[in-house]
Structure formats: structure tokens, C-alpha cells
């Protein structure tokens, strides 16, 4: 297996662009994928670029994005989505919201590729700064379209209750590789983007992964460990 992992790593290096351009180091948000304080596209004076500001602001200043919670400071997406639900997948047991909810809406405010990255703090965004344009389509979640709607059926179900009819899931007291329980990473009992990803690149994420709460290969702690933390397969 060591051999196989080694081979994979060298393959990845050779294949180059298909591999992640940046991976987390669990050392906190500073210098991580979500630290935009050194980016030229950050509006305003270079000397006044912050880390948290593109996402959170301490005062509403008459703007309304705060209503999404967590002192949200980034323009939200008004796209419409086709959800991964029981109509699409009859074996899906648990209740899914009819549109993304909770903190998934916050991630999608950049990642669905419809809102400019610099649309925060009341700044009118530059249309050239959509995530797909500025950072490549790999960072666009979801990529798929269904007519004019964004198609979430190619993305792991989100805004879905963890508990319900599905008996193939581990108890919510199960501990993530990076620490904390599954329950800690659910929101109102629901799986959201943040259940798998740690946007702040904290010590709860696994170095070398795409900000994941558990590794996915033997070298990172076990084959498909992220998936197997929740799914009892």
C-alpha cells in the first residue's frame, strides 16, 4: 500500500493541474485558501486588506447580508437550484430542504460562481471576479446545470437531516479524525458544506486535504475515511 500511495503521489505530481493547486495545512485561516488579504482583487487600499472581512463584518452599516447569520458580509447568491432529493434518488431517506439553507448558502455565495468575489462590504462586485473566472472552474460547486438552474444532484446532499430513515449512518457522537463529533458539525441536525469542510483551515482539518475533516487515503488516515466517518459501509 505504501508503494501504491507513493505511486499515486508521483502520478499526481506528474499529472499536475488535475491535482489540487493548494491544500490545507490545518494552521488556521492566515495564509490559507480563504485568506484574500494579499490578493490584488481585494477592493480598496492595499494597506486596508483584512482576512475576515470578505465574509464577516462586526457591524451591519445598513446592509442586509447580516440576516444570513454569523455577521455575514458577502453578497448572497440569488441563483435557483435543483436539489438532490428523494425524487431523484428513491433510496434517499432523510428530509432535504427545497433549497440550500444555513451556512451552505454562505459558501455558495462565492462557490456557485454567480456572485463576484469582491461583492462584500457594500462593494459592487466586478463581474470578472466570479470564482470560475478568477480561480478556475474546479472551485465552482456545483458545476452542473439543469436548464437555467444550478444542479445540486452531482453534489453530495446538503441541507439534509442527518437523522431519519437512513439506518446506514454512524451515531452523531462519532468523532472526526480532526477532532469534534459529527453532531458538532451539523447545523440544526443537518449536513451542510461545513460538515465536511473546515473553511477556516483550523486544527480540525487534515493537512494536505481540501480542508476536509478527515483524510481520504491511507497516507492521510485511511481510505475514504471522510465518507466512512458518517456512512457505516
Amino acid at each position, binding site marked *: *500500500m505504501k*508503494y*501504491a*500511495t507513493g*505511486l*499515486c503521489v508521483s*502520478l*499526481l505530481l506528474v499529472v499536475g493541474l*488535475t491535482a489540487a493547486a493548494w491544500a490545507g495545512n490545518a494552521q488556521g485561516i492566515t495564509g490559507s485558501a480563504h485568506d484574500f488579504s494579499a490578493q490584488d482583487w481585494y477592493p480598496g487600499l492595499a494597506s486596508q486588506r483584512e482576512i475576515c472581512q470578505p465574509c464577516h463584518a462586526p457591524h451591519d452599516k445598513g446592509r442586509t447580508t447580516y440576516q444570513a447569520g454569523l455577521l455575514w458580509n458577502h453578497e448572497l447568491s440569488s441563483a435557483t437550484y435543483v436539489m438532490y432529493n428523494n425524487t*431523484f*434518488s*428513491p*433510496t434517499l431517506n432523510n428530509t432535504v430542504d427545497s433549497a440550500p439553507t444555513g451556512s451552505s448558502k454562505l459558501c455558495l455565495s462565492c462557490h456557485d460562481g454567480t456572485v463576484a468575489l469582491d461583492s462584500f462590504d457594500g462593494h459592487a462586485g466586478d463581474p470578472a471576479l466570479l470564482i470560475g473566472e478568477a480561480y478556475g*472552474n*474546479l472551485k465552482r*460547486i*456545483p*458545476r*452542473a446545470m439543469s436548464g437555467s438552474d444550478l*444542479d445540486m*444532484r*452531482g*453534489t*453530495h446532499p446538503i441541507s439534509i437531516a442527518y437523522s431519519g430513515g437512513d439506518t*446506514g449512518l454512524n451515531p452523531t457522537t462519532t468523532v472526526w479524525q480532526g477532532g469534534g463529533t459529527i453532531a458538532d458539525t451539523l447545523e440544526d441536525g443537518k449536513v451542510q458544506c461545513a460538515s*465536511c469542510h473546515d473553511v477556516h483551515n483550523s486544527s480540525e482539518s487534515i493537512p494536505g486535504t481540501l480542508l476536509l475533516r478527515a483524510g*481520504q*487515503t*491511507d*497516507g492521510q488516515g*485511511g*481510505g*475514504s475515511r471522510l*465518507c*466512512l466517518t458518517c456512512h*457505516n*459501509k
Partner: protein
Amino acid sequence: MKKFLVVALAAALTLGGVSLALANGSAAGISGSPHDFSDGTIKNGKPGATITDETWNYRGEICRVCHAPHDKGRTNYTNGLLWNHAVSTEAYTMYASETLDGVTDGTPGGNTKLCLSCHDGSVGLDTFDSHAGATPPASVDGGIGNLANGSLVINTDLQGTHPVSITYNDTADAGLLDPATATWADGTTVAATLQGNKVQCSTCHDVHDKLSVAGTHLLRTANGSSNPSGLCLTCHNK
């Protein structure tokens, strides 16, 4: 688990070149099972296999060969279940017979289509993510899971395979037991393993080797001498 593999391997070596219909299910979950392509171990090796390791699984993950959490602009997800493997484009001859009461789809549907994306032998095992995959039949015929001469081959002629993508019609066919009360070894009902009331590959097999019986080919109820034809008798009132 490791021990079991070693024993199985030794048995395989002893039996030598003949047909090795070893049943590799352990019912301990997908890790280490025949569908774990990250552990470097081939479980159902057949004579003449040219695939001798699992380095073709270039990502080293378990689920990813079949499922991926994001579509990344690929279209296999439209097959459902976040499917991440290329599916077969073969045409099949479906099972037909005079005495059949259920309705068979014109082409394999539902989960059966997912299994056939590897088991009909037409698609390279490594055709997942955006990976182009080796050109079959070289990779697959000579390989594992679908050997040209091995018993794992399921050809595009599905008349030699138990009917799949067929409705379970226990009203018209009095020889079928009530799926709502017929149960598998783990207690789940047959009804719960039908898909849109149809029998699929996954009705008899648990691909994740979790709800299956140890020592079988990932079957939901044993069928061998420990429980002679117990699987068949779960549905057929014979």
C-alpha cells in the same frame, strides 16, 4: 481481516489454475472487501489475469471509484448516487421466457446499470473521475472482476443471468413470496431491496459487503451448503 485474506489467498494458490469461484465477502464492510480497490489486494483473481494489483486506482480512495462528492463538470452523476464511473454503452439481450410474469425493462436500469459499468467487461476499471481509463478489453478482459474466461464475466447476453430490472409481481406469479414479509439474513425485507419494485443486482448482492453474509459472493442470504439455496428460497416459494 488480514488473516482471512491470507487464508483465502493460500486457498487460491492451492487450488491452482482451475476455476476459483472463491467467495470473498466478509460482511465486515467495504474496507478490505472485493470492492475496496485501495488495499492493493485482488480477491477474486482468475487464471490468466493480467491485472495483478490495484495501482490503477490512482487516487487511492475507496468510494471515489464509484461515487464522488462533487460533479466537477462531469456527467456521470446523472445516473444517480453521485456516480463517478463511466457507464457502459453496450446493448444487451434481456432475459425473456414464456413463463415470465413480471415486466422486464428493455435495457438494464437502476442500480443494475451501475454494476454493469464494470461487470459487463466493456469499460476500463480505471475510467472514473475524468480519467480516460485503459482501453478495454485489454484492461478488463485480462484483469480482475471481469475475466474473459473467469466466472466473473457477465456478458451483454443477460439471458444467462437471473432476470434483473424486472418487476416483482407476486400477484401474477403465485410462486413468489410476499416481498413485504420475506426477509434477508440481516432482517431487512426483500421489498426494501427492490428498486421501484424491481429486482436489480443489488437486490441479491450488497456491493458494500456490509449487509451480506460472510463467506458468500456478497449475498444478502447464504445460498451454499450452510443454507442450501437459501437465497433463492427467500423469494421463490419452491
